[in-house]
């Protein structure tokens, strides 16, 4: 564990370096000191992606829109999935939005440590900066994709409900879930590269366990409890409820989702901190 304490004498810092034992503290203070690095890494992720690709920021729109088109044709059209009172395209798009943030954040954070290995082995900084930056860049994509949502709502003449203020809370829940799982996976990926290959399957399975192409109400009553253990169920239904006024208001089950997300998130941070000290030797 590394502790640094600022001592007033000419703002001289004394750093004590010694082996850490057991579970350390999260040392969020240090993370705060390095907040500019989170900003710069997020900015690098976005800038590089937009510079390298011909469509640039267009990808943030194209991806969810294409998904919406395909889902609307197959699930909405051919399979006739029930989308409640709203047209299927907007029904699915309202779910694709938070799912996109979640899936991208999960994917990027999971791989983030290994893809930034040069930095890990050469420079010291709080390691959690790296997965955090990955999450923030997925939020930027969300904001761009959200513009399309506004366009769709205008097109279908659907006014947002008065519950729209809750949207950031659902978004936060999605981000915390992704970051929690991402922290676990990224730290494990340093140890076992197999994790990197597993991440796409985890995301894919999770996709089917979340009411994106279908509505949560299709799930039988007796399964609802287990279903709600997946925090993304609450997030997606919450989005539909706040934006479109379709799904029912979130039941107390959303509380269970939030608690689970928080447990994964906090345990993920501790696990990450514990594994952190070996990253440079293993990555």
């Amino acid at each position, binding site marked *: 564990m*590394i502790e640094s304490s600022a001592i007033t004498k000419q703002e*001289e*810092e*004394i*750093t*004590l*370096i*010694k*082996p*850490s034992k057991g579970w350390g503290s999260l040392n969020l203070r240090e993370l705060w000191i*390095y907040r*500019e*690095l989170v*900003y*710069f*890494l997020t*900015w*690098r992720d976005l*800038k*590089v992606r937009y*510079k*390298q690709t011909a469509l640039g920021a267009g990808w943030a729109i194209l991806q969810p829109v294409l998904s919406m088109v395909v889902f609307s044709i197959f699930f909405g059209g051919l399979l006739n999935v029930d989308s409640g009172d709203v047209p299927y395209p907007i029904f699915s798009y309202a779910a694709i939005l938070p799912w996109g943030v979640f899936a991208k954040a999960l994917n990027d954070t999971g791989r983030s440590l290994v893809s930034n290995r*040069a*930095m*890990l*082995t*050469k*420079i*010291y*900084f709080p390691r959690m900066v790296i997965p955090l930056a990955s999450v923030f860049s997925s939020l930027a994509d969300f904001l761009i994709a959200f513009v399309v949502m506004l366009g769709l709502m205008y097109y279908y003449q659907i006014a947002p409900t008065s519950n729209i203020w809750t949207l950031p809370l659902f978004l936060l829940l999605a981000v915390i879930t992704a970051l929690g799982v991402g922290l676990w996976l990224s730290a494990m990926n*340093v*140890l*076992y*590269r*197999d994790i990197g290959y597993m991440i796409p399957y985890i995301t894919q399975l999770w996709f089917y366990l979340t009411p994106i192409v279908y509505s949560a109400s299709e799930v039988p009553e007796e399964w609802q409890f287990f279903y709600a253990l997946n925090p993304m169920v609450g997030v997606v239904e919450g989005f539909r409820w706040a934006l479109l006024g379709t799904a029912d208001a979130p039941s107390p089950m959303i509380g269970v989702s939030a608690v689970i997300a928080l447990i994964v998130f906090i345990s993920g941070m501790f696990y990450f901190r514990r594994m952190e*000290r*070996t990253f*440079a*030797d*293993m*990555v």
Partner: protein
Amino acid sequence: MDEIAIRVENLSKQYRIGLTPMRYRTLRETISESFTRNGRASRAASKEEEGKIWALRDISFEVHKGQVLGIIGRNGAGKSTLLKILSRITEPTEGYAEIRGRVGSLLEVGTGFHPELSGRENIYLNGAILGMKREEIDQKFDEIVAFSEVEKFIDTPVKRFSSGMYLRLAFAVAAHLEPQILVVDEVLAVGDAEFQRKCLGKMNDVAKEGRTVLFVSHNMSAILRLTDETILLDEGRIVLRAPTPQAVDHYMASGFSQSGERTWSIDEIPSESAPFRPIALRVSDNDQRRYDRVRSTNPITIEVEYAIDAPIKGLRVGVYMQTTRGEFVFTSFDTDNAQQFENYSVRPEGHYISRCTLPPDFLNEGQYVLGINASSYRVKRYFQDENALAFSVDGAGAPGKQWPERRLGPVRPRLEWDIDVR
């Protein structure tokens, strides 16, 4: 002035060989190794307690504020591990270190540089990675750009930079970090002579400003020039701490294997070297027998044995020769001959020996150091060890031996002199 900047007490670092040097494992390996002790695991187990090695063992020392301390030692002696611990990249296994002041580490310049971003963007990004605040970078921006001499290209993506420009920019950012304690590892091994001169100058300035510097290098002349005192490490322990000239002499005289052969074991080869794997470097003056003492009047054969695990494009394997004071005598590569380079434009996997012979009457008597380098020009340096093997040259029978004086200079050619009487 006599305050302590760094205090290190009984610092030790242990690596498990199964995992290191810096190697990750797959689930399958973990599972299969728990059933059978095969391959790497058993090879490692033969060395010390169940595949564990101490990269550093009970290191204790103090550095005063404003002191410039050199750290020398062979590859694998623990120099880099020590710097990594002090710059908090990795944790020690035992012991502790106390550091007073902000530490800046230059373990490698250009960390976090992104080829797609412009010079300007990379300055900000790299500065943030090195721990600079945004205002701090704003303030020093012009100075950094001026130092790097890339003003004209500052808005060009760095992927279009020449390697020299890239290095200058990277070093410029790092050099403008103003830590109280600077930890430097071998940054000077790269770049052209002009750049190296500039880096050394900058380091000199840093030292003159009264900041503490820890300087690891294989470049003995840089160590001699920049540091007053030096620690010599070997196999993870401090062998000697002495005024620099004394430490360098000690290192050069005894720090190497004396058999005329240097071999590399798996744990001495950094993972970045793959797919190149050095095996041995040998010196001999007669057929296949190896000597640490060769005669200057005989042809001297230098042999590099190595393995290549995957085909490498444009590979050149070569040797450096230096005097014990760090002056280079020559550098030569096995594909220096253009035809040879054609023939080996891609070197397939396999087990190789590259051999060359120095003509008789070439070297002066004295001690020399051989280094090896395996690289693809401007693509990648796979492996480099500038101080791989020391050997001495016996001058018996060399030209001019009738006078028992020490001849100046590293070479002692047998020249045909004409003496004309006019």
